């Protein structure tokens, strides 16, 4: 069953989303009335079932998301366990360090510091229980703010986060760096 253009767009958005996407946001992205979203998502849900896909589109609290089909859980679980290395990658450790020192911190702030997309790493750290959502930032979308957990402190042998070795922030913030970069860029892009 070939999908409609709007259903395809919804599917693409759900593919890159890390958290459930509210119907209102989908309507906004597609520039359609919000009551059109449900039938389109139903079309998607139905097509996945009919074509026997390995994933499903599900409606859960807060919106829609894509998840693996429950009957394939054994493969997914095996993958999750073979893929895991016994140590954190340098990138993951740096991300954890940023959360530890800068908490509460949003994913966008971490990404700005690291200069790369950190969604996967943040999810891994959250999944492992080293970091957790500790609040929501004000402003559009109310992004989640992350902090370290008690499990993290316990593993590091600390009582409080304040016991981490002190660091001095000698560097200009990401905003300042971005601004500087802008100024230094020549008039026309090479």
């Amino acid at each position: 069953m070939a999908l409609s253009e709007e259903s395809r767009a919804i599917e693409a958005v759900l593919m890159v989303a890390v958290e459930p996407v509210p119907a209102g946001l989908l309507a906004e992205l597609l520039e359609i009335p919000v009551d059109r979203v449900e039938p389109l998502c139903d079309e998607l849900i139905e097509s996945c079932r009919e074509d026997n896909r390995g994933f499903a589109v599900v409606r859960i609290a807060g919106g829609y998301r894509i998840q693996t089909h429950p009957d394939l859980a054994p493969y997914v679980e095996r993958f999750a366990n073979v893929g895991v290395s016994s140590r954190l990658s340098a990138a993951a450790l740096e991300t954890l360090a940023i959360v530890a020192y800068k908490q509460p911190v949003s994913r966008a702030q971490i990404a700005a510091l690291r200069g790369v997309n950190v969604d996967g790493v943040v999810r891994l750290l959250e999944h492992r229980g080293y970091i957790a959502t500790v609040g929501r930032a004000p402003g559009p979308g109310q992004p989640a703010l992350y902090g370290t957990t008690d499990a993290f402190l316990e593993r590091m042998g600390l009582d409080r986060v304040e016991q981490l070795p002190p660091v001095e922030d000698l560097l200009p913030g990401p905003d300042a760096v971005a601004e500087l970069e802008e100024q230094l860029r020549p008039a026309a892009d090479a």
Partner: protein
Amino acid sequence: MAATVSLPVFEGPIDLLLQLINSHQVDIYDVPLAEMVDAFVAEVATWEAVDLSTLSEFLVVAAVLVELKSKRLLPGPDDVEADEELSGWEERDLLLARLLECQAYSAAADAFTLMMEYASRSVPRQAGLDDGFAVHAPDLLEGVTPNHLMAAYLRATAARPAPVVDLYHVTVDTVSVAEAVSELEVRLPRVGTATFRGLTRHLTTRMEVIVRFLALLELCKQGRVALDQWGTFGDLEVTWVTGAPTTVSVGAVDYEYEG
């Protein structure tokens, strides 16, 4: 904004001029290079902001034109001995090969841009594992201490790419003597005596080595290190003078070198 030139034989963008010369539609012999440069400099003078891309593009093309013309003006085979003639041909072959190769890489760069542009229209799924899956993994923080974490934080915050200036051709290393002085201040008291080679072994650019040398001279001037050299071109031996004040007025050393 592409650089344009206006010459008796040609008027238009300078890279087009190069193409025409390459395709033999304009003779490099008839292109007055000095006039072309004068006209470009006059055009630059009218710019409100300096456009580095156009400047460097012009420089590259102008350099190729100068090279082409100098080859064209070389004495012919009649004036040279057989051996030299041969080496002249060899030189031209090499030049031709280089020009061709440069054009190929320039074409590759254009192809890369298109491929990257196309690839960037697709975004990979990054959501990771669904909730509720059990991961029986070893503790990932095994062996990680708070100090490791601090080091990772410093790495993460220091690893920001330096602001990228499209200087195109010039590499600017800014190394301050003051920084080198502070670094040596920490290092030398620990080792006591070291050789200059040993102190600069980890450095990669000549400018860094020079700055290290200047820093040593500065410390020597302040009577905080002793320098010895056994023989001409011998390795410089650096000895930290114990009892010297432990903090240097780094503010007194504030000049910077750019290479």
